[in-house]
């Protein structure tokens, strides 16, 4: 019969009913074969990944689906865009709910990427052979932030307009240096970047259509491509990282597991000769692995459902913000970017170029170098493994927090060079400002840790932990303690009328 034949041809290796046919199903399916056929039991332990990567992917899928739904009604043209947002919010059936889910899924995605990165770092999962996947992951972080940033303009409200004006001027901020050197008329990368981003010299219709194009087409496709490579490499680089002695540390396999090697294997040198990397463990069969289908799929589905639940509940209780229609003559006061950029905005408030381009560039470079500088083996696959262990992390947290709070407190209380010396040359402020001082303090700490423990891993832990502390504290200061004119206030209750 034709329908049955259709069903049969869908599964190249017959319906997935036994372990064997399920394995060939996973192996032969174009989507599923990003998974390996069998996964190690260690991988499925909650503490190995905490499901953070899948959580991020799930949030992306949710944002993708809700984003397509929003595209039915959204019109990317100034003022009209704002009206279509109002339509989505008040008229379109479930429109408000869908937009809320879209916004909160994007937030979960940003948090998920950062937490996943921290998990990978603290389990030393970036080490060989996974160095390149760390770089791909950084690409995913940048694209995720790009998606959030471009999406931020689309509502065309006051918040969006001024956040993007600031963002576009950050792209132009290399002029801070070229102007100070007096070479802008010959060499103007800043102006070029801004023009490319906005397609005009103001944030207007050209900018909106460009951001729309980036948001719904270019960046999602870039993200999908990177994501496919990222997951494929996870599989090809030997799955999720685990300690070398993972097999011994797991509870013994059940008595019903069929042993792979019934006798000690005799001639393993042949195997060692064809396997790349360090010698394969002799006499160790895949007893500790389980079929990806269904075990891994159950775990993934659970994380996916958890993410859906999170988005739905959040969307029910909190609406995505929508302010007044964009007004190019009156900035919001304070004009704040989305929360995950407020750490950067805090740095930008000291120097546009260093805060917006210089320091993020240094941070990305530093993070990207980690797997190529740190090539130790101790503690791979264990949380906070390696020299110093947990104590080093705690010590780094204390230092990282102390440094960022001290620098911020100093700058807030005493001001900076321009207040003491109005005629200070701009290059001096670009080079020495609270942001660069903090970066230097963190770099110095990292080098001190390398010396003290005689280990590059210790330096990497110091650097990454400090980066996290700095990011969190600056974000909190930018979000909660900055009021009108970007002045410091303990609470919005103390804001003056304006």
């Amino acid at each position, binding site marked *: 019969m034709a329908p049955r034949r259709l069903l049969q041809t869908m599964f190249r290796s017959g319906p997935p009913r036994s372990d064997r046919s399920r394995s060939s199903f996973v192996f032969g399916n174009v989507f599923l074969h990003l998974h390996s056929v069998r996964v190690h039991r260690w991988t499925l332990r909650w503490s190995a990944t905490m499901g953070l990567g899948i959580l991020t992917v799930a949030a992306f899928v949710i944002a993708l689906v809700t984003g397509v739904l929003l595209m039915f009604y959204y019109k990317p043209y100034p003022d009209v865009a704002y009206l279509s947002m109002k339509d989505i919010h008040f008229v379109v059936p479930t429109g408000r709910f869908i937009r809320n889910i879209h916004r909160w899924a994007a937030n979960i995605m940003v948090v998920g990427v950062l937490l996943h990165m921290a998990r990978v770092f603290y389990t030393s999962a970036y080490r060989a052979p996974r160095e390149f996947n760390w770089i791909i992951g950084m690409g995913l972080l940048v694209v995720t932030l790009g998606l959030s940033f471009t999406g931020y303009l689309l509502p065309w409200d006051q918040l969006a307009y*001024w956040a993007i*004006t*600031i963002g*576009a*001027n*950050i792209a132009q*901020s290399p002029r*801070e240096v070229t*102007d*100070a050197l007096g070479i802008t008329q010959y060499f103007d990368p800043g102006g*070029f970047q801004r*023009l*490319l981003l906005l*397609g*005009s*010299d*103001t944030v*207007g*219709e*050209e900018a909106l259509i*460009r951001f729309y194009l980036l948001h719904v087409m270019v960046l999602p496709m870039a993200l999908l491509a990177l994501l496919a490579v990222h997951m494929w490499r996870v599989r090809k680089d030997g799955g999720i990282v685990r300690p070398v002695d993972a097999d011994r540390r797991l509870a013994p396999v059940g008595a019903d597991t069929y042993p792979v090697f019934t006798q000690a294997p005799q001639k393993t040198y042949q195997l060692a000769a064809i396997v790349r990397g360090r010698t394969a463990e002799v006499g160790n069969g895949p007893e500790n692995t389980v079929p990806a289908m269904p075990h891994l799929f159950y775990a993934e589905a659970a994380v996916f459902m958890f993410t859906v639940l999170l988005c739905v509940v959040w969307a029910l209780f909190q609406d995505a913000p929508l302010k007044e229609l964009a007004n190019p*003559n*009156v*900035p*919001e*006061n*304070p*004009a704040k970017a989305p929360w995950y950029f407020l750490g950067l*905005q805090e740095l*930008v*408030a*000291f*120097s*546009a170029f260093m805060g917006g381009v210089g320091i993020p560039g240094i941070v990305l470079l530093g993070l990207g170098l980690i797997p190529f500088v740190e090539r130790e083996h101790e503690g791979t696959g264990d949380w906070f493994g390696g020299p110093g262990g947990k104590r080093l992390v705690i010590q780094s947290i204390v230092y990282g927090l102390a440094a960022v709070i001290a620098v911020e407190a100093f700058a807030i209380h005493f*001001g900076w060079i*321009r*207040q003491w010396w*109005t005629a200070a040359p*701009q290059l001096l*402020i*670009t080079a020495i400002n609270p942001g660069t001082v903090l970066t230097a303090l963190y770099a110095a700490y990292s080098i001190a840790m390398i010396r003290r423990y005689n280990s590059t891993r210790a330096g990497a832990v110091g650097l990454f932990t400090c980066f996290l502390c700095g990011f969190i504290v600056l974000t909190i200061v930018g979000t909660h303690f900055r009021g*009108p*004119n*970007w*002045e410091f206030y303990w609470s919005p209750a103390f804001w003056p009328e304006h």
Partner: protein
Amino acid sequence: MTVEPHPQSAAAKASRLDTEPMPRRDFLGRAALWSAASAMFLAVLGIARLPRAAVLPSPSKKYKVTLPASLAEGVAFIPPGRSVAIVRDADGIYAISTVCTHLGCIVKQTKEGFECPCHGSRFGGDGHVVRGPAPKPLSWLALQDTGGGTIMIDEGKVVAAGTRVKVA
């Protein structure tokens, strides 16, 4: 030890059994590959040229403004919808751009000068930076008396700070 070719073996040397320096198929294959690669490269260059806006859709930067009948000294007059502060003092009239030189927010006039709401840059009455992250003073813009209480402002033309125009 090399074997001297027989003087009469020129025809034999061209035999198709001998290896050519590069087989014809290899040559054609590589030619196809490299022509495709260079075509792609040039196409990408051409495509990269496209998003660079050739025509800027922003409104004209040169416009005429009617001054209010009574323009008090030192109080900025901001034409509606523009980002220019027109100020009168004892020496004449001048125009200062209200676009912050830090990140492009619009500054507000205060008693001491101007302040930016976005990152707290402060400027003196003549636009020089007093505090905050702004790297440059506010620009002074070219203006021209066009008679009858009107002036022409050119936002695209920056003049030296202190340039004032006498208006009747």
